Every structure is written in C-alpha cells, then in structure tokens.
C-alpha cells in the first residue's frame, strides 16, 4: 500500500506552486520532503491530505483512488493523521478530547478510553488528560498533537514542519523522540521540513524540492554523497566546487597529507580565514582551481595567509551531470 502521485500539479493565481510531479511514498517508511520555504513541499502535503485540490494528475493509495479527474475523496475519508505546524489543538477541548476526537468522529464507540490512554502513554503524557492545551508547555502541546495524529492508527501520518514552533533544545529532543515513536509504531510518515538536519537524521527517504519541482529522491546518504543537482549539493551540507561548477567534493574529504595507496589530486591554496568551532578548525582556502573559496576541516590552527598543499582522493570528487540548467532558469520569484 504505497502512496502514488502521478502528474500532480497545482498553481495559485497563475503562480506555479507545484510542477507536474510523480512520486511514490513507500509504506512503512519515513519519507521527508525537504526544501527551502516556498518550494512547494507544503502544497504537496496539503494536496495529499485533501486540503487542496490538484489542477492535474492523480493520487492513489494502494488500490484506492484518492483523487483523479473522476473521483475525489474528501479529507475526512482519507484516513490519514496530521501534525500541524502550530499544532492546531482545539482550545476548548481537554487533552483527552483532543486525542479522542478522531476516534469519535469516525463513529467508534468502544475502547476509546484505552486507545487514547495508550497514545498518551506513548508520548509520556499520562495523567495530563484532563488539562487544556493552554495549560501545557510547547513541547507537551507537540506531544498531544502527535498522539492525536496517531490515535486512529492512520494509514499515513503527515507532518507539516512540526518542530519549527519549538526552541532549539526542545527541537532536538522531540526530533529523537518522534523518530523513535514513528519507528516503534511502524507508521508510514510523510514529513515536511526545511531543516536538513531533521531530514537527514529522521528519514529513510528524502525528497529534495525546489521551485515547485522534485530535484532528487533517495536515501539520506545518497542525497549527501551523490547529489544530482547543484542546488541539492549546496542546500545539504557544505560543498566545495571545482572549476566549471560541474564537480564538487565535501570538506571532510580533504587531507593535508597524501594517503598512501590512493589516487589523489593535490591543490595549492592559501589560508584566508580560520575559525575554531570546538572539535576542529574550519579553514577557508583560496585555491587556484576554484572561483569560490573552499571550506576544509583541520585539527590544528593554521595561520592566515599560509600557503598549503591539500590532497583529495580521486573517488571523492563527485561529478554532476549537466542536465539541470533548465530548472534554475525558470525559477519563480519567492512568495
């Protein structure tokens, strides 16, 4: 039972929010839509949820057609769960009622209490069920929103940047916890974020989007090591570019000594800037081979202005194929 998206597109008042897109979201996997704001990822999520209507294409879940020219299943019959960016907890209902809502709304009569308590137990909110949302901290509200989304045992849980409303410390904590819960409960999750750390650390599969188009889909490692598009290479991690802009390598692959038995490239470069970040020094270099400065990591402090020779294993240089130019040219203006 995979989610199949075929040729789906959406525009708002002449502005193409999502170009025709084909995607498969695999069952039991944690899939993330990653991209800067305005890239169409939230639009895609809302199309899947049924909150927006596609202009073209079809969406199906396993055998069931959710949306096509001929048929449209309204959001409340799709059987999904969703965690909203601002949580969207109903302020006039207790925690219990918020979580029980989906069960009651779909007409279930028995076992509501057990199911709600189980969901609340999972997110460590047992004993809080009679509180109102405004009596909870941000992190607790987040947990309620999560419990509410999964209490109905949905076929697919949608996450719309759920961590962006939290502060940094809480965000890290919730990230780990949500990853754990999604895996433990065996949920199929579709997660929208602009934060590459969230995307890389939580997902089985990452879909990178830009300007309403999918640029690359793959495992996090694949996205990082073999970006297919310069935007992907720049957006995820740090990238150093060789002349021509067709080849790049990651900073951690630079050596200051040649490794024996490896085919290496060597470059002469001058140190322009050094910053200490705790576990290492981040060094900016000006190499003759490149138009932009490079970033490399070094275990010890280098003096600014020093001339160095650096070595890069041949297999660490990643060549991008040149078929991407069309995308950046018709990039729409930001919203």
């Amino acid at each position, binding site marked *: 039972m995979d989610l199949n998206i075929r040729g789906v597109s959406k525009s708002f008042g002449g502005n193409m929010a999502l170009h025709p897109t084909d995607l498969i979201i695999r069952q039991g996997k944690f899939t993330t839509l990653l991209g800067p704001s305005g890239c169409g990822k939230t639009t895609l999520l*809302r199309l899947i949820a*049924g*909150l927006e209507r596609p202009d073209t294409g079809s969406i199906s879940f396993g055998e069931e057609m959710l949306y096509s020219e001929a048929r449209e299943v309204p959001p409340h019959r799709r059987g999904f769960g969703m965690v909203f960016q601002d949580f969207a907890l*109903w*302020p006039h209902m207790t925690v219990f009622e918020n979580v029980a809502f*989906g069960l009651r709304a779909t007409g279930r009569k028995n076992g509501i209490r057990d199911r709600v308590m189980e969901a609340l137990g999972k997110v460590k909110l047992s004993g809080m069920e009679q509180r109102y949302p405004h009596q909870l901290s941000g992190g607790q509200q987040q947990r309620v929103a999560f419990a509410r989304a999964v209490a109905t045992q949905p076929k697919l849980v*949608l996450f719309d940047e759920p961590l962006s409303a939290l502060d940094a410390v809480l965000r890290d904590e919730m990230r780990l916890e949500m990853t754990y819960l999604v895996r433990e409960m065996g949920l199929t999750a579709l997660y929208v974020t602009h934060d590459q750390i969230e995307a890389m650390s939580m997902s089985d599969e990452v879909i990178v989007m830009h300007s309403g188009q999918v640029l690359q889909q793959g495992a996090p490692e694949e996205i990082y090591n073999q970006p297919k598009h310069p935007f992907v290479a720049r957006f995820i991690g740090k990238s150093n570019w060789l002349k021509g802009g067709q080849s790049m390598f990651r900073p951690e692959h630079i050596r200051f000594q040649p490794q024996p038995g490896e085919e290496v490239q060597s470059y002469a470069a001058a140190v322009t800037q050094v910053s200490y970040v705790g576990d290492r020094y981040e060094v900016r270099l000006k190499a003759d081979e490149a138009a932009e400065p490079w970033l490399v990591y070094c275990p010890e402090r280098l003096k600014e202005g020093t001339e160095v020779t650096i070595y890069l294993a041949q297999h660490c240089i990643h060549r991008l194929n040149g078929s991407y130019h069309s995308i950046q040219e018709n990039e729409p203006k930001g919203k």
Partner: protein
Amino acid sequence: MNNSLQQRQLKIWSMVLALLVLGLLIVVPLAEIFIQSVYRDGQLQWSAPLRTLANSEMMGVLLASIWLGVCVILGTTVLALPLAWVMVNTRLSRWRWLEIVFLIPFMTPPYIGSMGWILFMQKSGYLEQLAPGLAGLGGAFFSFGGMVVIMSLHLYPFLYLLLRGALERIGGNMEEAAAIMGAPFMYRFRRVVAPLLLSAFGMGAMLVFVKTIAEFGTPVTFGKRIGYEVMTSEIHKYISSWPIDFGKATSLSSVLLTTCLLVWYVQSLVNRKHTYGLVGGKGIRRSSMSSGSWLHWAGGIYVFLLLLASVGIPYFSIVAASTMKLRGVGLAWNNFTLDSYKELLSWNSPSMKALQTSLWLSLAASTIAVFLGTWFAVVIERSRSRVQRTIDLFSLLPNTVPGIVLVVGLILLWNSPWMPIPLYNTYGMVILTYVVLFVPYTVQYVKSAFTQIDPSLFHAGQVFGGTPGYIFRRVLLPLIIPGMLAGWMMTFTIASRELVGSLLILPPSVKTSATYIYAQFEQGQVSLGMAMAVISVGLTTVLLILLEVMGSKRRRTAS
C-alpha cells in the same frame, strides 16, 4: 545616578497627578451618582435607589431597556452571522473595501439614522411614495419591532467584525485538523466551529447589549414617537422637561450604571475563562477550495440587501428630505432644490452659528483630549504596576459607561453648591464634557502605538547617549504621533456630532449642529435639519473613512 533618580521621581509625580486628574474628571462624577442616589433630603437613605426601583413605573423602564437589549442581540445576530460567513467563505472576502463600507452604519450617529428611518416609513413617507402598495408596512414599522430593527441595523457591524475574526481563525487549521481526523462537515461544525464561535459571540452579544441599553439617539427620536421609554430617554426626560426631577434621574442613572458595570464584569469573567487565543504562529493559510458559485451569488445579494437597508435607506431619506422644496409634493425632480443648504450656510444664520459652535467646541475638546490622552497613555506604559492598571481602567471608563450617565454625573459635580470653579453653564463645561466622554479614544490609539514599540528602541537611545528628553523627542514622539493624530481626528468627528452631552450641558440658547438637527426635526423645518445632518455626517464620515484607510495602510507597511 542623580539623573535617573530625578527621572523616577518625575514619573511617580506624573502618575499621581494623572490619578488625581482622572479622579476629578471621571471617577468623582460617577461616584457622585451613587452618593446622590442614596443621599436624599440631607440624609443618608440606603434604600432610596431600591425604593425608586420598586416604583413599578421605574421597574418597567428598567425591564424595557433589558428587553430591548435582548431583542437587539437577536437582531444583530441574525444580520451579522450570515454576513460574517459570507465574507469569510466566498469570493466577496477579496473586496477589502467592503470592510470600510460596513463601518458606515456604525459610524452614523444613531439619532440621524433613526430620523432617516422615520422619514422613510412615516405616513406619506418615502416608502409610501415609492411603493404605495407597501404603505401598510410603514404603519407596522412604528412599533417595538421597528425600534429593534433600527438599532440592529446600527449595531450589527460591531458583532460582524468579532464573528468574522473568529471565523477566520477557526476556519484555518482548527477545522482542517478536524477534517483530517475524519470528522464530516456537520460533526466538525458541532464539535469545533460552533463552540469556538460561541465564545466570540458571547463577548460580542454582551457588548451589543451594553451599547443598546446605553444608547440615547434612537430612543429619544424613534422611541419617543412610539412611546417606548427606556432608561436613557427617561433620564433625559427628568432632566430636561417639566417637571424636572433630578432625584429620579440620578436614581435611574445609578441603576443604568450598575447594570452596565455588571454586564462588563460578567463579560470580563467569561472572557477570561472561555475565550481562547486562537491566533496561530503563522499567517492564516486559507484553503483555495471554493464553494459553489450560487453561494457567491446568494452571498452577494445578501450583502447588497443589507447595505441597502443599513446605509441606503437612512441616507437616501436624509438626503431626499434635505433637498425638498415642499414636503407635500414629495419625491419629484421639480421638487428638488438646494435652498436649504443655501439658507443653512448663509452667514449669521442660526444654523451657521450652530455649525461654527460645533466646530470650534470639538476642535478645542479634541486638542485638549489628545494631550490629556497621550499623557495618560505614556504614564500607563505597558500597565505593569497596579497604579498603571488603575489609570488604564479609569481612563477607559467613559467608553464603558453610558454617555448620559457620565453627563449626569458631571452635572451633579459641577453644578453642586460647593463647587468653587464656576464652570457650569459655560462653554468650558461643554468642552470638559466632550473631553471626558472621548478621551478614551486617544488613550487607546496612543497606547496601541506605544505597546508596539519594542523597549530595546529606548535602550538603544540611551546607549547611544540620548538624554531622556532627547529620546522622547526623537524616538517616542515620532512613533506615537500617528496614534495621536488618529485620536485627535476621532475625537473631533465624534464630538462634532455628539447629541446627549450637548442637549444636557449646553448653556441656554446656544446650539450645536446636533441639537440644531434634533430641534428642527422635532418641531421645525425638517429639510433644514436634514441638510445640517448631511453636512455634519458627510464631513465626519469622510474624515473617519480617511482615518480607516490611513490606519490600514499603516498596518500594512508595519507588518
């Protein structure tokens, strides 16, 4: 160090002085009402107000006011709820200018709106002339039901704005979350939309109630005609026409004041418990899914009819009456004339004098009110301390208590035998009354401008070496001047057409435009009165719309 100590002392003195001024202007007059109503014939009689109430006539008046309030709540709900729904869910929501048009009924002084309705509905009025078949409707209109209709058509924009705001916020994520959780439309409405809407509605309903029982314009024009007496009109009667009975007026005022304060209190309790911060972190993202096109049409027709009834009819009647040569001839092109305007605006005529009096009194009052209100607002700051909250509460009191009650209190205080300042029966008294009645506008505008200023702006000013005076002049003042300007314009427009204060306070034989309109309508030349109404309302409505447009533009650039 020495400098900051001086500054603190200055601040404390400023607060104390503000409290004293507010006490003298607002609190003592209101207290005077309670004191006078228990202090009869030189002795304390705690039961006096109760005895007045027990008087069946008085009780009847109180109940009449309350019944009117309840019915107007119903009336405004019937008008405002569909409107709010239409304006949120159909394409009409894109027409932002409608927002301003819907404020017109609310900005029209109720006495002028009522006069328009009377002219339209009365025997051989414009309805009869336009559609003779509907003449029977006119007769039925002069009843309690007609009064409720007039007042509902005046007050519905108020409820509409509250409901619209709530609907907009609920319609976003709150309802979407319910949809995704599997709730069908009716279930969503019952469990999510209705309960959340109810909290906003409850608040609006109570405000409508207070505004209705505090209103003076409609009862004194329309209510008088149909013999439906409410508290405000009774108070006016006991003060202004023979046999004058200040005791009864005072007792009634104390009852009206108590009722209003009670409703406000309940409202603030309910507000604290059952209103929810519905504001999300992100801007509201409305789904682009649209409803059927027949709904847009139905909504459009509803909006048109509502505007026709609440703006079209009263304004048409007023303008028509002001341009008529002979009343008997009625609506006909050859009966059209601008003579009333000529007569009205001719130099040294009583009407021109009234207009001039209105203008200079409002000008003086609004100027004083702006400085006073700005001072209060700056003293209040972010209302952190108890004293600041008290100043806040006192300075906004005139907005919460009925105007007529405050006027009665001012009369009791300034006309009392022990008052050493001989202000009563002078123009000064009129200006004072206007200032007291309308100072809350400036306080609110300046306060909202002030609270939007981040404190770090002042800190930055200090760090870069600004003295307190310099920071005030270069940082604070430029940022609150828009608020001051808004307060000044609002006070000017409202004061220039204020009826109740003018009727009760003006020195003998002096008229303002409002009392001129009232007198001409009651027993003079209707066309002259209505021409004055057109001029005074036209002038002030233009000013108010300008203010609204200015405000929305500023909000847009600020966000």
